Structure formats: C-alpha cells, structure tokens
C-alpha cells in the first residue's frame, strides 16, 4: 500500500492524478474561471466525497476481507440519519428536547447513539445471519438484501414515509466561513474535516495496529491468517460491525444537510458501490481516492448541468465515471489485474 508509494501502483497513481486534474479543470471551466464559484464546486465536491466515503469505506473493507457486497449498508446510513434527526428534534419518536435543551449536546448524543445502534445492528447481522452462510456467497447477497428491506420497512413503520428536513440549528450548523468571497456553512467544513480524519484514522488503523495487519493479511488470505492462530471470524465480525457503525455515523452527520428520507440509503449505496468498484475492489486507498474524485466530479457536473439545464447529467456522473474507468482499467484503479 503506502510502503512503495509510486512502486507497483504507478499506473494507478498516474491515472488518479490525471483524473484529478481533469475534474478540477472541468470544474474551473464550469465555473467560468470564476474563483468564488469554483470554491463552491470545490467545497461541495469534497463534502459529497466525504459523505460517500463514510458509506463506501465500510463496504470496501467488508468486501475486501469477506467477499461480501453488503446491500444493507445504505440502510445503516439511513438508520443513522433518522436517529440523529429524531433525537435532535421535538417531533418523532424520542423527544429529548426538554431533558437536553442544548441543541449542540443533542447533536452529539444523536451521533453517538447512531454510531452505537449501527454497531449493534451490524454485529447482529454478521454474527447471527451472515456467519452460517460463509460458504454460500450468493445467498449472503440475497440475505443482506432481505435485511435492507426489513430495515427500510422498520424505518417506515417507526418514522413513516414523510421526508424530514433538518430545522433545528446548532452552533457549527449556523456558523459560516468565507472562501474566495463566497460564504459557506461551517458545517460543510466540519464534515470535510471529519471525513479527512476518518480517512487518515482508518489508514493508521490498517498500517499501525495489530488489528490492521491482520485485516490486511486477511484481505489476501484469510485461511493462512487462521492457520497462524488468529480467530479470523472474530476479525470478520469486528470489521463488519465497524463498517456498519461508520455508515450509521455517516448518516447522522449527513442528516443536518440532507435531512432524513426513505430514498437516502439506496442513492448512497449505489454511488458507494460505484466508488469501491471504480477504486478497485478490496483496495482501501482506491476507495478513499475514488470517493473524492466522484464527489468532485458530481459537484462539477451539478454546476454544469444547471448551466445547460440537463439535470440528468449530474445524477449519472458516478455511473458514467465507473463505466469509463472500467473500460480503461478492467480491475478498477487500484485493483489487482488477474
């Protein structure tokens, strides 16, 4: 991975740099070389990229390690969003506005509860439903899909189908900052910051800790890891739980911007799948880089599609990018050629 930064993966990195340059040039072009609208594109792109990463990172780690494409990942994102919304606002199921009058603290509580619930639900799914199916990968796919339906319906039954938009503001959601003369909500910066911290955090976890070494080894050859005396199944459960928790966490911190809606999960899931395949399945750096590229491209395309008045252009961007990358590099950016 990082040890030979430009070693075996030189082609991939060259391609990545090329794509970055192309996307940024395109963004400059769509903003008519106006720095303040370029800044909008940049911030919005990074923001969307980080949200994508929050769903994609878990998906990618789980796929790399266990060969499971977790179709329920989007539902975990949604659970996080709904929980955070509910705990923040007086409407909904749990009303803690009187017990905790400070909206900032309520937000923190919401995020933590989302993280915790995501972890618990992730643990249940892996430990009790997926584990009996380890030698039947196709059925694992069906199962995660069934679980995503159950979770979606659960949400529908608890919170009904009306979309919630976030109304209860708190400190960083209100604050603003200025870039090239353009004012932005501080909250975008906050999400970007969280995303960057998470990218670095997971990278450090993978590089520096014993668990990380085991996970990276497990991606290559889980059987050999177990033959070295390590209980790989426990590691599987741990990583799966972590992936679901991060997705729910992502939903929670996305909610102040995106609100909580029924279609949130499927949109992010499909885009996240596009990201991890584009980045190369099983490659963490591919997922990180892919998230940012797709996020930036999305923002630039959004800008562009407003200009030409073809809104479809923006929504198909992640898919289009994926198709192009796979045609150029069938194994994705950082995937291993077979």
């Amino acid at each position, binding site marked *: 991975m990082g*040890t030979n930064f430009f070693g075996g993966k030189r082609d991939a990195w060259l391609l990545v740099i090329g794509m970055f340059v192309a996307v940024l040039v395109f963004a400059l072009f769509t903003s008519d070389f106006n720095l303040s609208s370029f800044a909008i594109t940049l911030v919005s792109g990074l923001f969307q990229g980080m949200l994508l990463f929050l769903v994609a990172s878990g998906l990618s780690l789980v796929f790399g390690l266990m060969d499971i494409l977790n179709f329920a990942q989007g539902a975990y994102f949604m659970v996080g969003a709904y929980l955070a919304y509910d705990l923040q606002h007086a409407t909904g199921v749990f009303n803690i506005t009187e017990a905790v009058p400070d909206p900032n603290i309520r937000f923190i509580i919401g995020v933590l509860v989302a993280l915790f619930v995501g972890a618990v639900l992730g643990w249940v799914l892996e430990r009790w439903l997926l584990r009996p199916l380890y030698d039947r990968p196709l059925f694992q796919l069906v199962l995660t899909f069934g679980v995503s339906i159950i979770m979606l319906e659960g949400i529908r039954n608890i919170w009904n189908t009306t979309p919630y938009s976030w109304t209860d503001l708190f400190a960083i959601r209100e604050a603003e900052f200025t870039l090239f003369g353009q004012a932005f909500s501080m909250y975008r910066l906050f999400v970007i910051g969280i995303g960057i911290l998470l990218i670095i955090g997971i990278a450090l976890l993978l590089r520096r800790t*014993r668990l990380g070494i085991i996970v*990276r080894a497990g991606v*290559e050859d889980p*059987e050999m890891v*177990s*033959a*070295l*005396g*390590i209980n790989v199944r426990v590691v599987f459960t741990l990583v799966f739980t972590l992936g679901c928790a991060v997705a729910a966490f992502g939903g929670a911190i996305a909610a102040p911007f995106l609100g909580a809606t029924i279609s949130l999960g499927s949109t992010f899931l499909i885009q996240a799948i596009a990201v991890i395949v584009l980045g190369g399945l099983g490659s963490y750096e591919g997922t990180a880089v892919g998230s940012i590229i797709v996020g930036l491209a999305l923002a630039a395309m959004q800008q562009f599609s407003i200009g030409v008045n073809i809104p479809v252009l923006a929504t198909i961007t992640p898919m289009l990018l994926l198709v192009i990358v796979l045609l150029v590099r069938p194994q994705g950016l950082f995937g291993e050629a077979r």
Partner: protein
Amino acid sequence: MSDNILEVRDIHTFIGQFHILEGVSVSVPSGAITVLLGRNGAGKTTTLRSIMGLNQVTQGDISYMNGSLVGKNAHKIAQLGIGYVPEHRAIFKELSVRENLQIAARKKGDLENNLDFVFELFPDLKRLIELPGGNLSGGQQQMLAIARALVPDNGLLLIDEPSEGLAPIIIQQLIAAIRTLAANKTVLLVEQNFRVASLLADYFVIIDDGHSVASGSMADLHKEHELVQRYLGVA
C-alpha cells in the same frame, strides 16, 4: 506410543464431493523429522491441511500431545503450538517482511525472543525486513514462510514442499536451516523430491491414492527399492 507428539489414525477427508483421504495414518515421533512421500495428488497436502483443521476430517482421529484435534478450528490448533508452512508459501504480499513476522506472534515477546534465531537461520531476511513480501524471490519467500512459523513457540512444524520450484543452491540453504531448527522442534514434512527427503527425514510415511501404504525409518527405505519404485517412481 507416548513419544509420538502427533498421531493421525485412519482419517478420511472430503473436499467438496471428492473423497481425497480414504484412510491415512501417520505417527510423528517427537524431536525428529518425518516426511510424507508420494506422488502428485496422492493426498499429502490434504493430510497436512486436515491436521491443521483447514479441511474437515469426517472419520478417524488426530491426537496431538494426547488431545484430539478433530473438529477444532484452525486457529485453535495453531494456538496449541503447531506451525504451518503451506504449499506455495502463502506469504502476505502486501505486508512487509516485518509485518509478516509480526502477525504470527501470539503473545507479547514472541517476536522479540525468536527474532535472533530467525535471523541466524535466514540472514537474508534481516536486510529485507522492510520490503513487501511480494517483492521477495521464491527462495526468500520460502524462508519467510518458515521464519513465520518460528515466531511463536511452536513444538511441531508442518512444512509443505519446501523445495518446490527453487534453485539447488537455495535448496541447500533450506535443508541446512530445517536441520538446524529441527534440533529442538518436531517436523512433519511433505516433500516430492526424494533426494531432499532422504537428506532431511528420519522417518517416512508413503501416501498413495488417499491411503497411507507404508512407513518406517528413512534409513530402511533406501533398501526397499521395490517400494520406492512402485510408489515414488524414482529409479
């Protein structure tokens, strides 16, 4: 036979629908090197994998230091002190040599205590320590695979085809290393190459078509020309 550290009794193993082992028995005396001989596809590798818990044994028993291994998960078996060096090495290519060794440590101090011995045995590894495993040559990977099994305090090593695809000069080094490490470990070896096997092993078991068909001391095997020709095809 209390001085046999490992006793495999009449095991049967399926891989999918294929009945691979149809009655294999192997006794491994402690402190010695035992070799499994036999031709390609005879079931030697499956025997090692069955001992290690990587293939499910459906019948028969495997006892290690008087406890049964049958039905145990691979990681539990490894924790009992059995080191496994698989066919084709199974080095983690993305991990550095150091990380490949680190991951094998089962408790604090494993790596520190045994690293000197490992470097003494395979001095090459010392200078390659920060390189990704995938960048090593075949011989170096084989050394790393054996070194990895030496990091924890294993009493028994299962080594599958150490000489496969290696140049003679490397094979020489490996033979010397395995002999050195066997001074205080028990080794069960799979070796296709009869010459290498003769140089290493004290005892042999011949496996043919999923059955163990002969066993004894290696010194005696050299007199059994008929046996050698029949099962091993060596003139």
